[in-house]
């Protein structure tokens, strides 16, 4: 990726770093003396912020503490995680159901914290699956994926999961337009006739967080890229960047970069709601999945849905407006006041800032430059507040500090540039190592940023850390922005490839953190509430083991009478009721995963033994001084062998004669 530029940067940067005694030219190009103190969080002390970082091609979401850069947790979302049994246990595997069947991997690009009144509220964090289009909701009480909804009529769910200021909606826009409708078997070259984009508005229940697709807007075939909601005065509008208004279907690198300007699509979603209420939507027959994890039954409820309501903005004229935006826009960011919309053309050498007030006036005055596939195109100058001239090369994304300043990432020139929104004037710039993609200011896309830091999520790592072969961790960099100048204070490696990330003051989340599940509230079908209830039950060729775990034994721990050909289900209930006392469960030859069972929880592992023998099982999570003793045996017999089903714990002196 862009090798010439990397090499150049590498040389200048490494030259600067290899001279430890030399005086830095300025605070922006080298680490100054107090950087370590600013990023230092003493042992036993807590970080000030949680940072929810997309895992990119890992499909997961990682949680870091800031300013230390400590990795606190990796939350499995769209990819299986054998460590936690996610996607393998009977309880969780339904979370990865889709209309394409079980999908074990995806590409998680963006995270978005829920908001109330335009401020991050610490309830949920949303994430998008780019490949098989889905949106997930992660519950910040448990740091677990609570719900995943699939998006029909969609491909490449990139401009997602951005939200409105009271989390009324999470949006999802298609990166890849595709044929939609009954006949999808069409020539690829018929893009212009047959391919369509769609923008989904997913409603979020205020109390439960449950997601539903409220409606979809069917749009011309273009590539939607990123989006952000209006806020304050512009609440009720959503802005989506798009490229490939050329409608190319091959060699997009060249063919989708022909026009001087592509678009930002302004969507009046309150108007769309009115049309929806007035019955102007068309119900379309589709197929998509929705899975919810229940924290009491400790099970996934997965269902297939088959209807979505579609609104056509080419017919319902006053929902959508295109605004020309230079050079294949990527980021589409709305400032805390809700007045300014910053577009970032990936190939542009300037940053246009649009004015919400001017957009409204342009619509009222019909200051249009014709239409694009039935949707009015507002005149560029009629929507433009102004342009930041010569800010850097390849602007991608912008976050805000709430003090009138914007921070824009520049991939090609590998830097963060701080600029004043009203004056459109560059104030400061710092290099990043190397080739920054997204960036994050805590609350930086909300009405109330908490602007102590900006974090750069870089695409290229090269020599930044000790080499680990051809494959390297991605680098993130933390800058203190409390002063006028940005100051680099920390590098930290990240999992997968981080794209967008969000951060939130720790106390908004930590105070609500679940410590354990109450065993009294466990409604799992296979729960074992106390060792007295532990048992093994045969139903045809299915053997259900109702087991308990507590420091440090399983009940039962000797099981006989299982036959080759049986499906064994270990339903393990952790009877502990203390924080941070999970037990694990692994059985020899299991061709899926282990289980980690939190206090008060029931988790189920399916095991299909293939040959006779005695198989040990054990606890995988160090639980006490006698953890090594926390184990058991299960005997598997040939189908014809008449061993009766039996189970026990602590039975020592009447062992069956050796056969």
């Amino acid at each position, binding site marked *: 990726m862009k090798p010439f530029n990397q090499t150049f940067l590498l040389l200048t940067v490494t030259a600067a770093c290899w001279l430890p005694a030399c005086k830095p030219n300025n605070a922006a190009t080298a680490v100054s003396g107090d950087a370590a103190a600013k990023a230092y969080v003493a042992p036993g002390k*807590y970080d000030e912020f949680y940072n929810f970082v997309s895992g990119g091609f890992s499909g997961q979401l990682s949680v870091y503490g800031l300013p230390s850069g400590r990795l606190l947790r990796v939350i499995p979302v769209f990819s299986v995680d054998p460590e936690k049994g996610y996607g393998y246990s009977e309880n969780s595997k339904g979370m990865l159901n889709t209309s394409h069947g079980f999908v074990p991997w995806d590409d998680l690009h963006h995270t978005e914290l829920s908001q109330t009144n335009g401020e991050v509220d610490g309830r949920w964090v949303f994430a998008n699956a780019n490949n098989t289009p889905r949106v997930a909701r992660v519950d910040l009480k448990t740091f677990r994926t609570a719900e995943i909804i699939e998006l029909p009529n969609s491909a490449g769910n990139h401009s997602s999961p951005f939200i409105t200021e009271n989390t009324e909606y999470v949006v999802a826009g298609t990166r890849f337009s595709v044929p939609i409708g009954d006949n999808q078997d069409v020539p690829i070259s018929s893009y212009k006739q047959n391919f369509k984009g769609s923008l989904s508005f997913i409603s979020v229940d205020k109390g439960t967080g449950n997601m539903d697709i409220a409606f979809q807007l069917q749009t011309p075939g273009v590539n939607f890229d990123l989006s952000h909601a209006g806020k304050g005065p512009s609440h009720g509008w959503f802005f989506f960047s798009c490229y490939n208004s050329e409608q190319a279907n091959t060699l997009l690198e060249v063919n989708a970069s022909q026009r001087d300007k592509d678009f930002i699509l302004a969507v009046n979603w309150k108007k769309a709601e009115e049309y929806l209420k007035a019955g102007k939507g068309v119900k379309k027959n589709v197929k998509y999945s929705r899975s919810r994890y229940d924290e009491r039954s400790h099970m996934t409820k997965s269902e297939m849905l088959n209807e979505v309501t579609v609104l056509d903005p080419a017919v319902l004229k006053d929902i959508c407006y295109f605004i020309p935006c230079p050079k294949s826009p990527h980021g589409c960011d709305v400032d805390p006041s809700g007045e300014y919309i910053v577009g970032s053309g990936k190939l542009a050498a300037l940053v246009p800032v649009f004015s919400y007030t001017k957009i409204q006036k342009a619509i009222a005055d019909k200051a249009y430059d014709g239409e694009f596939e039935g949707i009015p195109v507002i005149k560029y100058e009629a929507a433009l507040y102004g342009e930041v001239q010569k800010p850097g090369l390849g602007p991608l994304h912008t976050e805000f500090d709430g003090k009138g300043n914007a921070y824009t990432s520049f991939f090609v020139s590998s830097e963060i540039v701080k600029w004043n929104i009203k004056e459109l004037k560059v104030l400061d710039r710092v290099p990043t190592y190397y080739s920054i993609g997204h960036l994050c200011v805590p609350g930086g896309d909300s009405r109330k940023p908490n602007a102590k830091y900006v974090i750069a999520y870089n695409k290229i790592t090269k020599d930044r850390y000790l080499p680990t072969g051809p494959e390297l961790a991605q680098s993130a960099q933390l800058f203190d922005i409390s002063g006028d100048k940005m100051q680099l204070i920390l590098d930290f490696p990240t999992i997968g490839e981080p794209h967008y990330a969000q951060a939130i003051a720790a106390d908004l989340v930590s105070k609500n953190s679940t410590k354990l599940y*109450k065993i009294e509230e466990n409604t799992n079908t296979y729960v074992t509430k106390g060792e007295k209830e532990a048992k093994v039950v045969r139903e045809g060729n299915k053997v259900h083991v109702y087991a308990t775990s507590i*420091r440090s034994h399983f009940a039962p721990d000797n099981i006989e009478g299982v036959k080759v050909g049986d499906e064994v289900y270990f339903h393990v209930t952790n009877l502990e*009721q203390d924080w941070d*006392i999970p037990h694990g469960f692994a059985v020899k030859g299991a061709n899926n995963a282990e289980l980690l069972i939190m206090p008060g929880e029931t988790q189920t592992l399916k095991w299909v033994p293939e040959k006779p023998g005695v198989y040990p099982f054990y606890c995988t999570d*160090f639980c006490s*001084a006698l*953890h090594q003793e926390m184990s058991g045996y299960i005997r598997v017999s040939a189908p014809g062998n008449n061993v009766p089903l039996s189970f026990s714990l602590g039975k020592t002196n009447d062992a069956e004669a050796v056969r």
Partner: protein
Amino acid sequence: MKKMILILSAAVGLYACSGNASKQETPAASTPAKTESGNPAYDPERGAGKFKDVAVSATLDKPMAEAGLKVYDVKCASCHKLSDEKLVGPGWKDVTRRHKPEWILNFITNVDEMLEKDAKAQAMLELCLVRMPNQNLSDEEARNVYEYMRQNDGVK
């Protein structure tokens, strides 16, 4: 591994407890006033915790004991037999004769602090080597369990 460290540090605390035994768990939990050396205010008969004076009648409260049995089945029976046989923890036979009700209720509901400062609790940990889990019993549940212990010890 961290649990191992906790156990070891608790064991070490047995010998160091007359000094300023430090708390390892959470930064918020430090209560230095209670860990002064010698700890003259500590009542080893009653233990540390919120139970100072538990009213116990001469006869058994049967509904309470029944409720206590239900808690026992789910949260206690994995480790405690009703006889005098040790399983993971000591058997319950005569437990109400060995300890005052306050001590038992405090140990059930405040196990970490008790293991840190109570000599009898520490001696049991040396025998069992598994820290008694805090099973998150409410005060009422703990009291019911105590009534069930009394029933097990023959109170009618």
